[in-house]
């Protein structure tokens, strides 16, 4: 039997793994929020990243190529959204809903035509490299929790740190934020707000693409609705983070903890699994309300 400590280590280990796709997507989406173009299509873009990423990884036998394909597909989706909203002056939210629908349609139709099924497509892909040398994993508790994580999880945290740096310290980041705060001032300074709107949307596509790919890799397969609402949960993380990358990341970890706990509880409890599956959404909803109520005071 496993000791309470081992159980805790298990839950935390899975929390970090479950946070990985959320971190990629929400930090990407954060750019869009800072530019004043909050992208609600993270869900659909993650689906594109998962499908095209896994298809390319399966075909090439190379995870890096898969990741690039996933990123390219999701970035193309967000670029399309940018064209529609910036050039054609479409409503951003409606364009976002359209991209979500488009992603479902495109992935299903292509899944049928490439793999002859609309259901689960399993891929024979190489194992993910561990992020740390094996001996670190033997450190009690911290070893299994932190040092047995995959390369993708490590990259997700590098992505958080890099985004924080870009947003705070680079010219590009400052201009994206300025565009979100005062478009006219940016215009008056001689920069084109449209360019930063587009750049921010592409960032959100890149993040979502990686996030979707990470989801696919974690189960070595693509299944319909693989994202299962994670794009929306990532959006809530963006809301809760109030523009700060590290707070966004912290919110992701909170939601990942809920997912990990519900996974764990599903294993043995008397509570029906379908009800337990609702737990991450409930936790997300409650934190959203708590944050809003807190702001009011």
């Amino acid at each position, binding site marked *: 039997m496993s000791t309470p400590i081992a159980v805790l280590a298990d839950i935390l280990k899975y929390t970090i793994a479950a946070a990985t796709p959320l971190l990629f997507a929400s930090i990407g989406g954060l750019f869009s929020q800072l530019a004043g173009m909050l992208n609600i299509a993270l869900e659909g873009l993650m689906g594109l990243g998962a499908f095209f990423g896994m298809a390319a990884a399966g075909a090439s036998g190379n995870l890096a190529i898969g990741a690039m394909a996933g990123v390219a597909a999701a970035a193309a989706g967000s670029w399309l959204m940018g064209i529609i909203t910036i050039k054609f002056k479409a409503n951003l939210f409606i364009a976002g809903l359209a*991209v979500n629908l488009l992603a479902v349609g495109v992935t*299903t139709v292509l899944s049928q035509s490439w793999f002859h099924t609309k259901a689960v497509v399993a891929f024979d892909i190489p194992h993910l490299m561990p992020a740390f040398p094996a001996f670190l994993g033997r450190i009690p508790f911290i070893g299994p929790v932190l040092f047995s994580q995959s390369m993708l999880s490590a990259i997700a945290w590098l992505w958080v740190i890099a985004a924080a740096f870009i947003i705070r310290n680079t010219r590009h980041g400052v201009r994206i934020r300025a565009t979100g705060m005062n478009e006219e001032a940016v215009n008056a300074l001689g920069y084109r707000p449209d360019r930063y709107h587009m750049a921010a949307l592409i960032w959100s596509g890149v993040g979502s693409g990686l996030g979707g790919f990470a989801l696919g890799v974690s189960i070595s397969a693509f299944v319909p609705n693989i994202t299962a609402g994670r794009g929306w949960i990532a959006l809530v993380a963006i809301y809760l983070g109030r523009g700060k990358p590290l707070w966004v990341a912290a919110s992701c970890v909170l939601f990942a903890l809920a997912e990990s706990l519900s996974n764990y509880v599903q294993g043995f409890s008397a509570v029906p699994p379908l009800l337990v599956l609702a737990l991450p959404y409930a936790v997300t909803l409650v934190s959203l309300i708590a944050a809003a109520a807190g702001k009011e005071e």
Partner: protein
Amino acid sequence: MMQSERELPAGARIALAVVLSVVLAAAVLALSTKDFIPALGQFFFEPFANRYFFGNYIADSVPLMIAGLGVLIAFRSRNFNLGGEGQIYAGAIAAGMLALSLPEHSSPVEAWLFAALAGMVAGGLIGTLSGILKGFWHVSEMISSFLISAIVLNVGDYLITGPFQDPASNFQTTRQVSSQLLLPRILAPSKLDISVFIGLALIVVFAVMSKHTRPGFELRVCGENEEFARYCGIPVALYQSAAMGISGALYGLAGALIVIGPQARVMRGFSSGLGWSAISVALLAQNSEAGILPSALFIAYLKAGSDHVMIGSGVPSEIISILQAAAMFFITARHFPIRKRRRP
């Protein structure tokens, strides 16, 4: 502004959206099947081919009319109700549970009324919750309605496959609602029933309400200019909550009518996609109740066509998602950048 000169009028945009999504449908078919010409026939003409297909097509447009009205009411108050999937499910389950608990020989009319009411209350409560969260704590109704809906979908799946599972069935479904309690069919052998009249009546009622009554007018003001509405003493938070509530109630009613109508039971996941389709309907209707009817007929037509193509040519019926996405893109694009020669 210069841009407004090139802005397309609503009528042209709707026409463009319709034409372009039909063209796109043909293009998608050309790419995804070798039997292009038969597939075209299946997509565009089979829904009208006979009484059976036509009746089924119209039957599928009914929930879209009702739920589409629901989306529209939320739009009026500047609210996005993204919880339709869960609200339909909740309405269906509430109506199903009620209809299944009635004794065999209950009066059908009473059963219809109670089932419809149960559906409206279930969907309405869920919608109102998002409305209240928005009205009083400024929680984004878009996100909250989606999350609540995700919770409801899981709980609903549990109810259908757990306590209410039909022990005699191999499918994940509740028991069948007694056939005496179902809405009377018209245009047999298709699944069309009298709920189509309920849909049409609701469109008329809402059209009249919004143009000729005070609440209808005040709701418009809330949506168009919140500051001004507040200045006039209109209880904005109340209207927003109520609009989300009515929106949810209409979604719930749409679900309930399917259960006491064509489906006669609640099957797991039966409403998947309906909530999103209703949003396309409301967008195509461009904020007009009267517009809901042609929009629902159009989206249901695309859906019927996709279903026929799937049966006939094996093209996944999910092409409907691509077509709806395209229609949404086209309808919301306000401005078509036609390249002009720049003056030096």
